[in-house]
Every structure is written in structure tokens, then in C-alpha cells.
């Protein structure tokens, strides 16, 4: 699959400033029709980057489809930023290859960068220029004609909620506003792929919701492919369609939350139940009733009044049955049950377990 698609890009090596000849993406579209699956805007095969002895990225296989948000999760120094730089053609891979919008970023960085919006980690702007002027500069660098650029700038500023401060110098911006401006900056070129390095750090919680909603809208309306890296687990969990867990340069797990939970979870489900109890004896009865249900491994009483009971179920597949059983038990024993719900698997648990497992596996490989 990769071999035929590399051919049109190989013809022109080096600095082909005027892209003459048949358009490579047009041909790739035609080629795609024969395939059963659309080509992913971001694909890597065995992508590797080493700095001396240090392996920053180790044989990475990654695919991000159009219309999905992929979250790259990992500790600092896990290789997230290096991966992103390779996808943008800003660093050359030591081994393996990457395809972004069907092009090799190492060979045709300009065309890739023309169609990929990038928000760097700790984004900065020229502090003596206004937000709008900073975006104008980006538009000029992208060779967007002036009148189109003004429309695009207005739209992008509107989308990130910065229209009212657009004509202030960026030195007066807060960290969160710079982050928003960075997202607007990445949107100016109307990209097919958006790569965001820590997009929500420094943005306040309400702003984060706005930004994440915006990302969702971009994905559903414009069918963008979004790759974001983050260490804020709960945000990643909420906004991403799929998640890749990155540790020591390796992608140790990828998939939807459900996939990851079944792979790295303990195969337990957590159910919360709100029960009105008026006395200690009532609480003891609740515990008794819950513990009697088959499949329940432990029952935790609320630490404070008003908090729910927590029930652990193993295996996780039994959770629906247990939930029904709780309802049935409540009605038959006369418990004052007000609600029952299943807790989504915690990404934090999954992440910790995946990293631990990878670390152990790695240790075994070495010895």
C-alpha cells in the first residue's frame, strides 16, 4: 500500500519551489477509490528517531483518520514532540516513514506544512505586534491572498473567542489567550490536518470546554484529522475518539477508551449508587444487599453523607446485569435507591497500568 503512493513524491527531490506536473494528491485520490478504506491523513510506518544512543521514537506505527481526534498521551520526554516534528518535516526520521496528507514530510515539507496546522508547545507570538498582525504574517507566509486572509483571520479569531482583543499587542495577552491565538493561527491556513501540542494547558476550565467543543466541531464539520498531545488525562478522555499511550518512544497501546480499558484495565467495572439511609443500621443493610449480588467483589460506603456508594464488579462484562440486580434488590428489599450509574473507566488507571506494564516488559527484554 505504501509502495505505489511513494512514487509520485520520489520524482521531485529537494527544493522543488514551483510544484509543476500532475498534482500528487489528486492522483492519490484516484488511487484511493480502489481501496476499501480511505487513506488516513496521518500514517507512520516504523518511524524511528535516535539522538546518538537515545531512542526518542521507536518504530512508531500510527494512523489518524480524517474526522477523528487522536490523543497522544505520554510523560514529558516520551517522544511526543519529536513525533510531531517528524510529521511536520521539521526533523528527519532516522528510519521508517511518515505520510501526512499522502506526502512524505521529509521530502516535501512545504506542501505538508501548507496543509497542516500546528500549535507548538508553549506557543509564542511577536509581542510588539497585535494578535491580528501576527495572524496576518502567518497568512502571508502561507501565500493566502490578502482579502481571503482577512476573512479567514476574522473567522478564526471568532472561533477561538478572541475577536474583542484582536487589535491589542500580544504582550498584553495572558498565557491562555496566547494559546487561543495559537489555535487561531493554526486554523488560518484552513488545514486538513491539525496537530496540537498541549493545546489546553494554561487555559481556564471554561475556556477548555470551549476549545474542545471547537475541536469537535472542526472534526465533524470539516472532517479534519486532529492529533493532539496532552498530559491532561481527563481532557484527552473526553474529546478524543482514539488514544495512543506513549512511553519511552513506543506506542504501548492505542484505540478507543473501551479498547484500552479492556486491554489494560483490571477487567473491573465500577458502579455508583445513591441510596438514602437514615441510620448506621440502614447503611449496614445496604452493604449486605449489594454484597449479596453475584459478580460484586467489593462495596464501599460513602465517606460523607450525600456521596454515592461504590460497587466494584468483576468481570467488567457483568456490569449491566449487576446494575439490573441492584435495582431489583432495591425494590424487593425496600431500599431508598435514587440512582444507579456505571462509571466510565478512568484513563488515569489505564495509563498508569499501561506504562507500568510496558516498563516491566521492557525490563524483561533487556535482561
Amino acid at each position, binding site marked *: 500500500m505504501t509502495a505505489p503512493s511513494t512514487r509520485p513524491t520520489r520524482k521531485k527531490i529537494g527544493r522543488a519551489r514551483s510544484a509543476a506536473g500532475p498534482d500528487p494528491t489528486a492522483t492519490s485520490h484516484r488511487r484511493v477509490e480502489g481501496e476499501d478504506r*480511505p487513506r488516513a491523513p496521518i500514517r507512520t510506518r516504523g518511524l524511528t528517531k535516535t539522538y546518538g544512543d537515545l531512542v526518542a521514537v521507536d518504530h512508531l506505527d500510527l494512523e489518524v483518520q480524517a474526522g477523528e481526534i487522536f490523543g497522544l498521551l505520554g510523560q514529558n520526554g516520551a517522544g511526543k514532540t519529536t513525533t510531531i516534528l517528524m510529521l511536520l518535516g521539521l526533523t528527519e526520521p532516522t528510519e521508517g516513514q511518515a505520510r501526512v496528507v499522502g506526502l512524505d514530510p521529509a521530502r516535501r515539507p512545504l506542501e505538508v506544512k501548507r496543509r497542516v496546522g500546528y500549535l507548538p508547545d508553549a506557543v509564542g507570538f511577536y509581542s510588539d505586534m497585535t494578535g491580528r498582525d501576527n495572524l496576518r504574517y502567518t497568512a502571508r507566509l502561507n501565500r493566502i491572498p490578502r482579502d481571503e486572509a482577512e476573512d479567514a483571520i476574522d473567522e478564526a479569531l471568532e472561533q477561538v473567542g478572541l475577536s474583542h482583543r484582536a487589535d491589542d499587542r500580544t504582550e498584553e495577552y495572558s498565557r491562555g489567550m496566547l494559546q487561543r491565538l495559537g489555535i487561531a493561527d493554526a486554523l488560518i491556513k484552513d488545514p486538513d490536518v491539525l496537530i496540537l501540542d498541549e493545546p489546553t494547558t494554561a487555559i481556564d476550565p471554561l475556556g477548555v470546554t470551549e476549545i474542545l467543543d471547537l475541536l469537535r466541531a472542526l472534526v465533524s464539520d470539516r472532517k479534519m484529522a486532529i492529533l493532539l498531545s496532552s498530559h491532561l488525562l481527563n481532557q484527552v478522555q473526553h474529546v478524543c475518539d482514539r488514544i495512543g499511550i506513549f512511553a519511552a518512544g513506543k506506542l504501548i497501546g492505542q484505540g478507543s477508551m473501551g479498547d484500552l480499558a479492556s486491554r489494560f484495565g483490571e477487567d473491573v467495572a465500577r458502579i455508583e449508587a445513591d441510596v438514602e439511609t437514615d441510620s448506621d443500621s440502614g447503611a449496614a443493610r445496604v452493604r449486605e444487599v449489594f454484597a449479596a449480588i453475584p459478580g460484586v467483589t467489593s462495596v464501599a460506603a460513602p465517606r460523607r453523607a450525600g456521596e454515592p456508594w461504590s460497587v466494584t464488579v468483576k468481570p467488567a462484562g457483568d456490569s449491566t446485569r449487576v446494575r439490573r440486580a441492584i435495582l431489583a434488590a432495591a425494590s424487593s428489599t425496600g431500599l431508598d435507591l435514587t440512582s444507579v450509574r456505571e462509571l466510565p473507566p478512568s484513563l488515569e488507571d489505564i495509563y498508569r497500568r499501561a506504562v507500568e506494564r510496558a516498563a516491566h516488559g521492557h525490563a524483561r527484554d533487556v535482561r
Partner: protein
Amino acid sequence: MTSETPAIEQPVQRPRRRDEAIPSRRERSVPRAGWMVVSGKEFADQLRSARFVVLLFVLGIAAVIPMYFTADAIRTAASNITDRSSLFLSLFAFAPTAASTGIQIPAAVDFVRLVGPLLGVAFAFDAINGERSGGTLPRLMSQPIYRDDVINGKFAAALSVIGLVLVLIVCVIAAFGIIRLGIAPTAEEILRLAVWVVVTFLYISIWVAFGLLLSVLTRSAATSALIGFGLWVVVTIFGGFITGFVGGLVAPISGTLDQQAAANALQQTITRLNPSTLYFEATSALLNPQVAAVSNPSTIGGYQQAFQRVPSLQSFEQSLLLVWPHMVTMLAITALFFAIAYIRFMRQEVRA
């Protein structure tokens, strides 16, 4: 799945979305190189910056003060000497003595020799590391431009600003001479002045390229400014001592007359490692047609010839021939600094 060509099936939000499937068309229609966009922005930035205003002010003072005192001296000189062909050029090269205090004031060219390097370093010392510390470099690099467009554009912008300042100041001095003193330049004087502007430009370019190199090599703008200005002080104040000292060690003047002459010539070559010396020699040959040689003879025969020579005015071509090697050398030093900066920049990691 229909996600491969998003441009077609979704309602057109913006007109430019339509040609998204053929991304190269727009780039063909606007054939503008990335470095020109970068240098355009940098040029505008420099002109609005405080350092531009300050340096223009400093250079303006450097131009106006000698001119004020030169005016009197030239007026008296003009009435005495009528055959001197370089009267207009002495506006630039004449070092007047203030009549009231008796203090000799450096000529405009000496001021340029002193302040030029400062100007060069000031416009380039934070070119790259400023972008790095501001966090703008990764963003800039992720735009569809080549990596060298950044450094080329910045170099071009700094040189443009300096060219502008230089031409401006020369024009002010020349206009003052023409209007206030009524000395009109001859065609040859204009040519000499033009070449002098080019030589000065090359001289300052060395320092621009050096400042750029510092901005690539150091992480913080403060460090590169400190190194750049420190070196400027060392070169302009102690440069002559240092090259003289090294020359004395390498080629002590001893032995036969011919050996002494050869050693002397070698010492002069060593002093020319200092760009300031190169510039001084080139300036004196260009602005004073009486200067017939810039190099000391390397043989006794050469000295004899030099003494026998009838003092005469050099033509423009002869003077140009004298300073040609100086110009090429200055260009080479600039190219060397820029090449090192370029290579180092291309190999650096993008991330901060």
C-alpha cells in the same frame, strides 16, 4: 467513508476552500519566496523598533557634529586651495579642529568606522535566539517556508536597514555640503562616494553576519549582545595593539634592509586581519585621491620607487584598483560568518 475529499461534499463556508483539493495552484499563482515575506516583516519591525531610532540618532550626531566644524575649515581651505579636486570628499574625510577649544574632532568616516560595527551587531544579535526565546520559531518553521528562508530573510532585512541608514546619512552630509557650502561634487567624486558607501556597507555587513552568527550560537539575546558589543569594544579600541603585537612576534623587524621591508609588509598583512584596518585603508584611498598606495612595499626597491614617485592625484580607476582587494576580503569575511551561521542554523533542532 467520505472523509478523503472534505472540500467537495461539505457546504462551501469560504470561497478559498474550493481549491483545497489542489493545494499547489495557489502557490503557483503567487510566486513569492518565503524569505521575502520574512524579510519584509523583519524590515518593517526594525524600522519601527526603538533601536533603529536610537542608532539613527547616534549616527546623525556622528554626522552632524564633524560637519558643523568641517564647514568652517573647508570654507577657509576652499579659498586657499583652488586646484584641490577632492574638496567635496573632504566633507566626509576631513578631521576638523574646533577653533574654540583646539580639540580635534574625528571625521565623519572615522565616526562610521567606530559606530558601524555597533550598528551591524545591533540589528542582528537577537535575530534567531530572539525567535527561539519568544517561542515563535517553531510556529514560524511550521509555515510553508524553507528553513533557510528564516535566516536569509533576517539577514536581508538587517542589510536593507543598514543600507537605508547609510544612504540617508551620506545624502544628508552631501546635501549640507551642496546647499550650505556651495561645493558641488564632480562626477568622479560622486563615483568615489558611491564606492565608499559600498565599502562601508560591506564593512558593516561583516558585523551583521557576526551578530547573526552569535544569535544562532547563543541561547539568549543578552549573551549574544554582550559578546557582540564586547568584541566591538576590543576590536575598535585594542584591535590595533593586538594585531601590532602579534605582528611583532611573528615578523620582528631585523636583518638586512630587504628582510626588514619584508617583515614590515607581513606585519601590515597581519594588521589587516582586523576589518577596521581594511576599512580604514579602503576609505583613505577612496576619499583622498592623493593616496597612491595602501600597502607598504615589501622590498627596498619598492621604497625607492615610492620615494621617487611624483605626487599626483589618482584617477578613480586607480583608486578602485587599490581598494578592490579590500572589498573582496570584506565580502569574504561576511560570507564566511554567514555561512557558519547558516550551516549551524540548518542543523539546529527546531524545538526550544
